[in-house]
């Protein structure tokens, strides 16, 4: 318990100087925390389970915000064509969008970091193969690769996570490798080698902790990127299945009704999506700015 408290304190100690005085970034952090909490607790706080087709009533379809539903409850943000409560759908959509992005970014980053470290430490053909694969990946826009993946393997939550991982890993591997290579030039690695410390220990205890910082700095950026990409793919109809709509799919569903004035179906999930990405991006920008040596000189 004491160590947990210590970790929390040291975390706070590190985070405070990043954000102090930067109100937009603080607002972003608060906003993101709010969305995160809503996403985690959606099943307990949403008025309705939008995935449960039994509770939906087609008679409640396309109602504007603040309408009364057939069962007497109020649809604060209106309903869609199936009679689904938009508020609940957005909460569940947020949950799915964040889940997909979190899983993809954590797996993608882990794979990237491991491959980057391996490339740096092993060198030779291991490095050649890894880095050529990275080059291959980075010379194509992520969205196109994802479309290709989904065209080959079909759609689904798992497939879209794979597609997003493909988009995430390469740049992290490149970043880790270049950082690890510059760390390996440093003399403390030589000191470890002449002390006969085994390679895997050098990798985990010396290289990893000293190479990971620049990767962690871009993780928030990757997260917002993944959320945007998932929304785009789902909007195009090649992402999550229609039965479990994410924010992007909700927008796509409502898109057909926009021209007939039923704006809420599409606009509300859209606003939530943009706010979420915006919150993450202002936090990400601030973290990057804080870690940029060129800007830091000015910042002091």
């Amino acid at each position, binding site marked *: 318990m004491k160590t947990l408290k210590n970790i929390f304190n040291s975390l706070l100690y590190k985070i405070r100087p990043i954000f102090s005085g930067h109100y937009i970034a603080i607002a972003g952090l608060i906003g993101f925390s709010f969305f995160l909490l809503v996403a985690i607790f959606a099943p307990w706080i949403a008025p309705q389970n939008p995935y449960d087709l039994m509770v939906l009533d087609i008679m409640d379809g396309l109602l504007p915000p603040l309408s009364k539903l057939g069962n007497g409850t109020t649809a604060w943000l209106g309903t869609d064509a199936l009679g689904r409560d938009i508020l609940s759908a957005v909460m569940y959509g947020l949950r799915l969008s964040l889940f997909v992005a979190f899983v993809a970014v954590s797996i993608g980053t882990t794979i990237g970091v491991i491959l980057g470290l391996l490339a740096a430490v092993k060198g030779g053909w291991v490095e050649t193969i890894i880095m050529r694969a990275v080059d291959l990946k980075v010379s194509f826009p992520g969205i196109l690769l994802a479309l290709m993946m989904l065209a080959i393997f079909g759609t689904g939550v798992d497939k879209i996570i794979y597609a997003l991982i493909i988009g995430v890993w390469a740049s992290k591997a490149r970043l880790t490798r270049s950082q690890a290579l510059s760390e390996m030039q*440093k*003399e403390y690695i*030589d*000191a*470890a080698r*002449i002390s*006969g410390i085994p390679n895997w220990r050098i990798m985990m*205890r010396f290289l990893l902790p*000293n190479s990971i910082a620049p990767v962690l700095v871009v993780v928030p950026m990757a997260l917002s990127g993944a959320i945007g990409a998932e929304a785009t793919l789902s909007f195009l109809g090649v992402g999550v299945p229609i039965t479990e709509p994410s924010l992007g799919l909700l927008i796509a569903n409502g898109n057909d009704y926009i021209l007939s004035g039923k704006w809420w179906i599409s606009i509300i999930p859209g606003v939530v999506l943009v706010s979420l990405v915006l919150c993450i991006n202002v936090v990400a920008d601030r973290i990057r700015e804080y870690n940029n040596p060129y800007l830091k000189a000015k910042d002091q």
Partner: protein
Amino acid sequence: MNKAPLLEIKNLTVTYPQGPQGKDELKALDQIFINLSEGQITGIVGESGAGKSTIGKAILGLLDSPAKLVSGEIRFLGNSLVGLSEAQFESLRGNQIGYIYQNPMTALNPVLTIGEQVMEAIEANTDMSGIKAREYAIQLLERADVSFAEDRLQKYPHQLSGGLCQRIVFAIAIAAKPKLIIADEPTTALDVTVQQSVLQTLIKLSQQEQIAIILITHDIGVIAETCDYVYVLRYGRHVEQNATNKVLQRPTQDYTRSLMASVPLIEKRLHRFALNEEDKLEDTSTGLHYLQEKQTTQDSTNESLLEVRNLSKIFITPSSLLKAKQSFTAVKGVNFTVQRGETVGIVGESGSGKSTIGRMILGLEDITEGSVIYRGKDLKLITDSTERRAHCLSMQCIFQDPYSSLNPRMSAGENITYGLKIHNLIDRNKAKSLAQDLMSLVGLKREDADKLPHAFSGGERQRIGIARSLGYRPDFIFCDEPTSALDVSVQANLLNLLKDLQEQFSLTLLFVSHDLAVIRQMCDRVIVMKEGEALENDSNDNIFEQPKHEYTRSLLDAMPKFQGLAQY
């Protein structure tokens, strides 16, 4: 002299905001005064943190944004320079006052040709342009001793050597015949043999064109060779000022005296540097005991500890589809032996292969050819893994760069004992107390063992590095330029420590340095290297007093002459 001095600085104070909110401030300069008359070469000397460079930037209005000129006067030919507008400074810079940077490779724009960069300075500060400016540019380069001046105009900075680039920077600085040039460590980034001639060019230009120079440097040898007058600074404060030979030989202030005593001399070998060292407060007996435990196991002492036979290293860049295989011979057939308890020095310029030899001995680089016999055995022929490990661990290294030789994510104590714990050479419970013992032995506080490396200064980090190598109770330590990144007074302290430790434990050292004076002070025997070859291998006195090889003589000639403190 009744006219106004060329430059007059009074009470100059410059601050940097500090701390998380920027509320505290650090005084980079505190009440500094400087007077300079025309054509005079004035030195400003001090160790890191003295605020030397800030003076130059303040004069030209080039202070970087958080720095603030709080108070003081700067008068150039009687006119105040404080609070001038950017446009007023623009007409002053280059035209009246030139500036020379430490590193010519970063001062020149990599994507513009030399010609463009010289000519734009000419066009900005004189009324010449076009062909006339080009002709003048060639003249300037020739005056700055740039060979093939006309051809160089088409080149880019990366195609020229550092020394040439610095001469080009000189040419730019004198383009408009300024009255004053501020030279900020103009030779520090260059190789020893180049330093001397580049410096001579600068002095020649100053005399030819009647240009006064403010020479900012940490190198007392450079001051001794070039300056008429010198100011000594420390922590942004004025310490002492006087004619150069007076400050250097009969300093009046304690700081100046200890600074001068710290400068390693080339003329004679001293037992220790005469510093006012505080007595060690900590009890070092437990650390001593740990290290002495092993000394008893030593075998016969007259046999040589290390023998290097015909050692060669060829670096090969493997061929790819369109690039032929490239090879570079870093070390060519080097032979030498190191006796127990002896310190052998290897001296040479960058690229002479001196560090590569050490790295091959330690097993950090593969040996292309030849062999290393250590404790009577060739490492390559040892098959038993336990013996092999013991063999390797008894050779340790003290590294060059204090800022990269410790793992930044491990505490000082963990850095010292991590390897020992991995190999189960010590009891894990005793690791911490051992780390503390070793730290006190090298002159650090016991309680600092828990701090991370960034909490220590450069000199303190080198001490941690020494403690780390001592932890293995080594028979042999390779010292790879251990003080080249340190200030001269810190260097003297550290060299004294090494000498003490060597006496206490009869350590065997292989000491690599580019600095002849450091080698002179530290080593019993010296090997002179150039381009991978060992040119000379002789006793300390013979090398420095009767050098046989021409290259050794040229190295000695290139050393700035500093006689050291007058003995009184």
